[in-house]
């Protein structure tokens, strides 16, 4: 859940059923999955394991809610969806149905959103419901106000200073 993290994944729930032969564990009832600064909350969470490795987490909720805090930028990412799927190998988060992703003031909405938790890349898609109610993707990007971008500029060393440092 937290890109490149080796922290253990902790999970709490009301009940669970573990199918040892299939390597599937299903947690039900106010399920909270945490790893470092990331947290996933849902009504039901299914964890898939292969060769003793956790490979996939599937969360179902109304909606399921994932939060990730980027401590470096002090920025929180909030992701919502009726279904949230986390693919461990690709460290990819898929938000399905009523999908929404919020980073600070910016937000993305659509039927399906893919969020690459390593490179922080968002891929959104509308739905082809085929009944005339196709949903389109909606992006709200707040332009950075002049002061914030100026502050950021002054904080960054200029080229001449850069070369002096090297």
């Amino acid at each position: 859940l937290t890109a490149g993290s080796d922290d253990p994944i902790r999970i709490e729930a009301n009940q669970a059923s573990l199918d040892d032969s299939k390597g599937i564990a299903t947690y039900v009832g106010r399920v909270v999955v945490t790893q470092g600064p990331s947290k996933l909350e849902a009504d039901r969470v299914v964890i898939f394991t292969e060769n003793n490795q956790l490979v996939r987490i599937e969360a179902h909720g109304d909606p399921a809610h994932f939060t990730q805090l980027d401590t470096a930028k002090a920025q929180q990412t909030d992701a919502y969806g009726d279904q949230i799927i986390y693919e461990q190998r690709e460290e990819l988060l898929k938000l399905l149905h009523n999908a929404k992703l919020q980073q600070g003031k910016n937000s993305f909405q659509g039927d399906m959103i893919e969020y690459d938790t390593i490179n922080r890349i968002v891929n959104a898609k509308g739905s082809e419901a085929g009944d005339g109610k196709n949903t389109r993707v909606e992006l709200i990007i707040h332009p950075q106000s002049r002061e914030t971008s100026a502050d950021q500029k002054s904080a960054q060393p200029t080229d001449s200073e850069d070369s002096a440092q090297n």
Partner: protein
Amino acid sequence: MTDKRSLIRTFALAITCTALVALLYTSDEPELPENYKATDENEPDAFVVNGSYLEFDETGNLALQLESHQGVHFPNADQSIVGTPSVKIYQENQVPWVVNASQGQYFQEDRKLILSGDVNITRSNSNDPPLRFSTEELTLYSDTQFITTDKPVKLEDRLGTTEATGMNAWVKERRVELLSKVRGTYAQDPTHAQEPKE
């Protein structure tokens, strides 16, 4: 002189025998009530030392083996009390699950075994990751190989540790239900997770 001594010895012997008979006769056994049954509810009828009890399934395969250093059978209650029982639960071409405990009560008719005191279930073999449950008390139904407890339980496998209160386990199907207050930890890299102690 010798006549006199033998007379004394005979007399002393007589006194001793009389005293012995009197003692035996007035033993402190309470008066037996009229309607006393021949065997009382709590009377055991068999003691088994280092016994091994085997159960087979309908196809004749060994299903369960119960070993104990000491067992006592109570016929009327159809119950056996066994000390430090070790139970092996067998399934077709799978490694048996081994259950150890401080004490066990076996009810023959219900094929029910209640195990208590430091109960742990282990399954370890080369191709399956080791699995270990620990709890204070559980009930094992030997014919269906179903295990249940309402006590706190801890489950350790190569992926991590899970704790809960209450558990149902179907050994044949290798399926477990944790009934409440579930808290689990998945270690990312199995080498981080402690190997469950044998």
